[in-house]
């Protein structure tokens, strides 16, 4: 069979600099899925934009051919005139993008933006286009297509927006669909559903798909062919099964080693014995009043946390897992005293000497002591370091604030911290922009450690990083925990990351803890439908363990669609039952 698209010898560069993509070649067969896999900077995004010729202004195609064979013969997309290229875009090759939040115009209705794609390429009336759009909406799983048609993007959740993007791409029945990390910005259960949808549509329409991703788990679920990229070069290419089961190239093997995964089957473990707690969160609730931006709107209440009880034992890691909006970050902020809980809740911190500090009723001296002992590592290492402060200033600043040591001692401490996180002493005098994402996250960790804390709150510390870097940071965090006797409160949306680092996991949904257990117990015997959905939705880089969409569908819906035993509404909810020692589930007895 002749491939529908072949890319030959493609080289792309910016200005006169070294090419960022060199000699890339691959072929896409009719109805198949080709995965372009690589970390940030591998050139995968640039390649798929080149196919549509929507490159940034400064980028130049230095050499190569992109041959599209289809309805009307063979065309070289690199040499096609801009005018004719416009007929290819959206009609023969459609694209969906990474961020559904920002890839739709905020000021135009969804319906308007979708039918536009059809009307640009087909001589259809508005009514016909609307009909087609409504049918497509129904197909991509909108419960109420008419409503979606009239809605604005900001009125929809991320998953729904991505469905709208898919509808927009598929309405012209293109021969090729390019999906650029279409699920990276989505929650894991939503990701599973969107991946399932793309597969179904592909089977129905016979569209060929180029799937760009950094996630080997997603590759295992989607791809027929795999192309592994590193620094603009193809490292390895071949059928998915071959590449995934027996990666030949060293780089691919490295990617596999780094990919976190949930252990396939694990034995339950006995609950830890009597506890020395460093942090206790007692029946903490948080209600936000959301006011319209002016007095002419009534206010609504948002329950970010509802009756959360959590305990962090000294020297252990408690992980809170949940999708966006589950209340996990609010819980962490309350634990650090950045926010006050509703009356009735309390957070107690116990330092190594056993002194109790009530985090939300601290005296001035208690506050200073608490700030020294509890520190935070943030999600985005790019925005959590001031670009105008040298590393040494960022690292010594906490010491200055707490008036610890003299100038020399502070410097010494900063250098020591750098060594601890695996960076070199010479880097003290550089600015953050000189560091990569992973190095910056090491800096953030070093900064959090300078005050010699006992508790570290990590808010998704690895989710902005590449897989191989993520692996290094997790190792570092484990290593530091064991060496310095730290305790972690670890916030994440990623079960696989948590599986590795946590001693206990609390799964949150809608402001409530729905299940809580040590990770091995949790993965061996998840009881709650939502936990099961989370585990099932996690893409695993094993081609023989595809995502079970049924399990995902059962637990990912709203809490009032769960089985009778677990169901809860806005007001009434079941309590947290201890099924076996150390394993708690929110259900009716």
């Amino acid at each position, binding site marked *: 069979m002749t491939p529908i698209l072949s890319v030959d010898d493609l080289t792309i560069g910016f200005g006169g600099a070294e090419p960022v993509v060199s000699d890339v070649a691959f072929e896409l067969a009719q109805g198949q899925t080709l995965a372009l896999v690589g970390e940030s900077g591998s050139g995968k995004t640039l390649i798929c934009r080149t196919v549509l010729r929507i490159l940034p202004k400064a980028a130049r195609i230095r050499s190569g051919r992109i041959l599209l064979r289809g309805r009307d013969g063979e065309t070289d997309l690199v040499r096609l005139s801009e005018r004719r290229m416009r007929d290819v875009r*959206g009609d023969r090759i459609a694209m969906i993008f990474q961020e559904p939040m920002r890839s*739709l115009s905020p*000021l135009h209705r969804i319906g308007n933006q979708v039918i536009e794609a059809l009307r640009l390429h087909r001589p259809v009336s508005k009514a016909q286009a609307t009909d087609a759009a409504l049918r497509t909406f129904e197909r991509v799983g909108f419960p109420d297509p008419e409503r979606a048609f009239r809605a604005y993007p900001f009125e929809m959740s991320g998953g729904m927006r991505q469905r709208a993007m898919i509808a927009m791409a598929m309405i012209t029945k293109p021969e090729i669909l390019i999906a650029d990390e279409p699920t990276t910005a989505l929650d894991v259960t939503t990701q599973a559903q969107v991946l399932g949808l793309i597969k179904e549509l592909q089977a129905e329409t016979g569209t060929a798909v180029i799937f760009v991703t950094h996630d080997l788990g997603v590759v295992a679920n989607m791809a027929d062919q795999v192309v592994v990229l590193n620094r603009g070069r193809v490292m390895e290419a071949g059928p998915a099964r071959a590449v995934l089961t027996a990666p030949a190239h060293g780089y691919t093997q490295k990617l596999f080693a780094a990919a976190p995964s949930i252990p396939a089957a694990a034995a339950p473990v006995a609950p830890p014995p009597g506890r020395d707690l460093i942090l206790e969160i007692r029946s903490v609730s948080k209600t936000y009043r959301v006011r319209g*931006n002016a007095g002419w709107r009534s206010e609504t209440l948002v329950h970010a946390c509802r009756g959360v009880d959590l305990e962090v034992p000294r020297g252990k890691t408690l992980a809170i897992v949940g999708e966006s909006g589950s209340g996990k970050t609010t819980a962490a902020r309350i634990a650090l005293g950045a926010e006050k809980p509703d009356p009735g809740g309390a957070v107690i911190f116990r330092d190594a000497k056993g002194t109790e500090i009530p985090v939300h009723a601290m005296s001035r001296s208690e506050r200073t002591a608490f700030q020294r002992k509890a520190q935070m590592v943030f999600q985005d290492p790019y925005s959590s370091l001031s670009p105008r402060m040298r590393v040494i200033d960022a690292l010594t600043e906490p010491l200055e604030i707490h008036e610890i040591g003299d100038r020399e001692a502070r410097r010494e401490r900063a250098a020591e911290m750098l060594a601890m996180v695996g960076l070199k002493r010479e880097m003290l005098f550089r600015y953050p922009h000189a560091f990569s994402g992973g190095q910056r996250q090491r800096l953030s960790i070093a900064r959090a450690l300078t005050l010699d804390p006992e508790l570290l709150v990590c808010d998704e510390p690895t989710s902005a990083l590449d897989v191989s870097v993520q692996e290094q940071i997790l190792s570092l965090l484990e290593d530091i925990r064991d060496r310095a006797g730290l305790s972690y409160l670890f916030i994440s949306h990623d079960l696989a990351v948590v599986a590795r680092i946590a001693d206990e996991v609390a799964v949150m949904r809608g402001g409530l803890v729905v299940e809580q257990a040590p990770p091995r117990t949790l993965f061996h015997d998840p009881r709650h439908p939502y936990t099961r959905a989370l585990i099932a939705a996690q893409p695993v880089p094993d081609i023989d363990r595809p995502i079970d969409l049924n399990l995902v569908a059962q637990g990912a819906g709203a809490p009032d669609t769960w089985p009778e035993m677990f169901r809860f509404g806005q007001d009434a909810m079941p309590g947290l039952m201890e099924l076996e020692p150390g394993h708690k589930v929110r259900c009716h007895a």
Partner: protein
Amino acid sequence: MTILRYAIYRLFTMLVTLWIVSILIFVIINLPPGDYLSNQIAELRSTGQTAAVDQAEFLRREYSLDQPLWRQYLIWAGFAPGPNGFSGLLQGDFGWSFEFDKPVSEIVGGALWLTVLVNLAAVIFVYLVALPLGVLAAARSRTWVDYTSAFVGYLGLATPNFLLALILFYYGNRYLGLPIGGLMDPAFEGQPMSFEKMKSILLHLIVPTFVIGTSGAAAMMQRLRANMLDELSKPYVETARAKGMSPSRMLTKYPLRVAFNPFVADIGNLLPAMVSGSVLVSVVLGLQTIGPALLAALKSQDQFLAAFVLMFVALLTLIGTMISDVLLMLLDPRIRYEGRET
């Protein structure tokens, strides 16, 4: 429905603001010691003209200048009865100008509408010039189109308005036969509106509009260009390109639509800047707007005239912001539907 509720809400806040502004204006105007009449009385006393002193004393009582300040304010605004019952701004009595010895309404009557006209023309000019140039400069950023429009724009910003006025008058008159000074042919002054008078006003408007509007247009153009450039790098623009839209259609449908919001929001800022900016220009160009009247009134502590002019400017500003707020609400569904049940 939401729009209507919002408009009513905005109208209400506007009235409250206007009320607070009126207090501020009154207090500020009365900050310098003395007033027009007491200055005059002192002068008359020293020259021994007792008859005139009596008349001035009468005026003082008539306009309650002998009352404490807070009572003066209440009487002026029309919240409390003066010597002749309720007669203040609320009742449509704008007070007496001592300098011109006429009721304020007579002095500013015609000038009010000419002021509105001149500034409206300038605002329209600003938008007509800035919109296409700003979009063009953004779409062709870093090419000669962009640089030329930026150069012309900066020239417009940097040239003092009165200088620009003189230059334009000279060349306009010399090569195009445009009239110099004033807002209409002197023959039409005080005449009822007619087609000829209208034509004369429009001809006279050309140069003032240009002079008052240039710097605003230049600033606005640069702002629009910056907004457009921001929007052009957003992913939804890429989506539109990937759909196969032509560049011009894509530009006007998506980024311009978003960049338009700050553009609209600027109406509120533009009006007061223009009104106050045009005071000096009006003096130089001899326009019969309220600008020259305001200048004269402030110099001679002619308090009712000054207060009225300032109130009028405040009202224009508030109306401007209100219009832009309501327009924004109409244009931007994010504001309109925020918090709508999904």
